[in-house]
């Protein structure tokens, strides 16, 4: 049994190797492109593999642009879109997860499957379907006209992009949230009610605090891909007024002569997302401590 700690640590090896090969090494390659050079003849990115020789001139320009230049608007808009989409995801997803965990009874599994099955269809396919539904002569647009709503959904509207993000990511919020809520000790809520709390107070003072870890995990799970999302905007808008940081990364990497800028934006975005991850890790650690007590 003396060797058991090493044995258990050994189980982490495949995961560690996986992370190294598919995260650390690719991320290092991105950094090497970001701080590398451009081939003077063929104009493609030439990675600088030696960190001691990294050139930060371009990085300075990109970060300045993010802080005070043209990219600032995109960065702010991205944050705004993601925050709005997350709020809507919580508003839609929490009641569903709550209902499934608390009141679905024997139909729980069936309802869960019914909610999730449509999302087995590829994300792009679902968005393309929405493009058809929302087009000028699309079913949804025609249906809304019955109620006097004659809205051009595809005219580059931020609302359409935010709703697209919500539609695309809400199931990824429901699932982890449901997993958390399902494990809650509902007797504590009953106890709160017995002690005089009304349903609102019981929810606010008992259910919500107990769900915090699930909420944070679900929030992180949808926020991370949403911040890098570009295809929702590409499919539903394509207007500069809804441009997100992911679109700029796509442009610089695939459609410009400055692929370095794309790599630098990936790094900037990753640094920003690290804040989220730190918050998540801190929350889970605190939760673990509270549970231990």
């Amino acid at each position, binding site marked *: 049994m003396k060797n058991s700690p090493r044995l258990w640590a050994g189980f982490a090896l495949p995961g560690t190797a996986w992370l190294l090969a598919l995260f650390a090494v690719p991320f290092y390659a991105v950094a090497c492109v970001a701080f590398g050079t451009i081939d003077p003849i063929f104009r493609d990115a030439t990675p600088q593999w030696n960190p001691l020789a990294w050139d930060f001139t371009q990085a300075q320009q990109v970060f300045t642009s993010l802080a005070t230049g043209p990219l600032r608007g995109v960065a702010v808009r991205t944050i705004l879109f993601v925050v709005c989409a997350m709020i809507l995801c919580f508003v839609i997803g929490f009641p569903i997860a709550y209902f499934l965990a608390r009141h679905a009874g024997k139909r729980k599994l069936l309802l869960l499957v019914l909610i999730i099955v449509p999302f087995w269809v590829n994300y792009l396919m679902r968005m393309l379907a929405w493009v058809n539904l929302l087009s000028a002569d699309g079913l949804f647009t025609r249906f809304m006209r019955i109620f006097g709503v004659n809205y051009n959904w595809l*005219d580059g509207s931020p609302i359409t992009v935010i709703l697209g993000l919500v539609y695309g990511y809400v199931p990824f919020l429901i699932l982890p949230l449901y997993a958390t809520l399902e494990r809650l000790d509902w007797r504590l809520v009953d106890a709160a009610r017995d002690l005089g709390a009304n349903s609102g107070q019981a929810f606010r003072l008992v259910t919500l605090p107990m769900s915090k870890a699930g909420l944070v995990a679900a929030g992180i799970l949808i926020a991370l891909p949403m911040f890098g999302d570009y295809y929702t905007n590409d499919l539903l808008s394509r*207007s500069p007024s809804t441009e997100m940081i992911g*679109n700029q990364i796509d442009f610089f990497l695939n459609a410009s002569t*400055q692929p370095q800028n794309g790599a630098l934006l990936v790094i900037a975005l990753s640094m920003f997302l690290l804040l989220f991850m730190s918050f998540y890790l801190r929350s889970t650690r605190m939760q673990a401590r509270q549970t231990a007590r």
Partner: protein
Amino acid sequence: MCRRDFLRNLAITSGAIAIGGSIIASCGGQSTTTVDGLAIGTPDKPIKLPITTEPIADGLASESGTLEILNWADYQNPESISIFEKQFGCKVSTSIYDTEEAAIAKLRNGTFKPDIIIGMTDTGLAKLIAADILQPLNKSYISNFGNVIEGLQSPYYDVDAQYTVPYMIYGNGIGYRTDRIDKNAFTENGYDTLWDAVHSGKLGVLDSYRDTLAMAMFRAGNFDANTTDAAIIKKAGDDLVAMREATNPKVDILAYQELSSGNRDINFTWSGDLFTALQYLPEGVSPDVLGFWYPEKTVAKNDFMCVAKGAKSPVLAHQLINFLSDTDNALLNRQYVGYQPALESITVDLLISTGTIPESLIEALVTPEKYDAGLAQVLLEPAVDSLWLEQWTAFTAG
């Protein structure tokens, strides 16, 4: 990725490499602009490319193996290829490329080993020559070369067409719905039509910084599509921002779909897109709803076919070039591709009389005269290119 992505990337690569530098080298008796080791031709300074290897000998028999083509997706008619296979008793295999840069990178490292490369442009040619990937053509196999538009039989990027034979031509202009916009609007307002707030939410421009910024420059009366003047570039950027605020334009390469479906009234786009748009019209909608305004001064371009240096079937490659330069074969190929072959024999009258193009799209056809009057986009030096990109970012970042 399809033809439209290619065109977007073409404009990108046009911005990729330096023209500035102004190191004038003597090459085959012509003045040539070279920068960073890349020799490029411009309309003012055509280039005769150096010959580093001999073309294939005259009168060789066709190879019996497989002809390997490297081409854009959907940029050749499968029916045309079948006919070629039967006629020459060979098999044809096609590899697809997404961007010129990626294709050249794969040609350099040997991932692609084609016999014939189709759809590259002058900017790509400079790199192909620098990487020593092409072999000179033996015109004795290309008897249809005389069909090529006369002005392109010795293009500025390859004087005497030593390495290339033009494939398709196109120009930049404005596609519109004739059932919503009177064509006289363009006579009266020209490019200003794109700034008209009445089209808000129903307007698109090309997702190509060289093309769209150049269009804004033309509107302002500056007709240098390769300007290095920071003030002119800045003004074009500012004008696009004004357009964005007035019309909330879409920035993409989907004019062919969006005009056909009626989602848009108007779109700054490539002329060839309007021919493709015909295939996307909903059932029962007349082709006459599509119109095109071809500005008097605008960008006109072409791409070409060429043979790879390490080709295993160089004779077949030459024969395919000859085959696609035949008028009837080119017409058949055009039916699928949509774009307009760079052949003198494929006239406006011929295309209209065969009924493949509606009269409302006559303007979208690039005649030799239009091509000659067209403005060329050439490579920009990196510092200038950055200025263009900066303005494009200011526009697209909203």
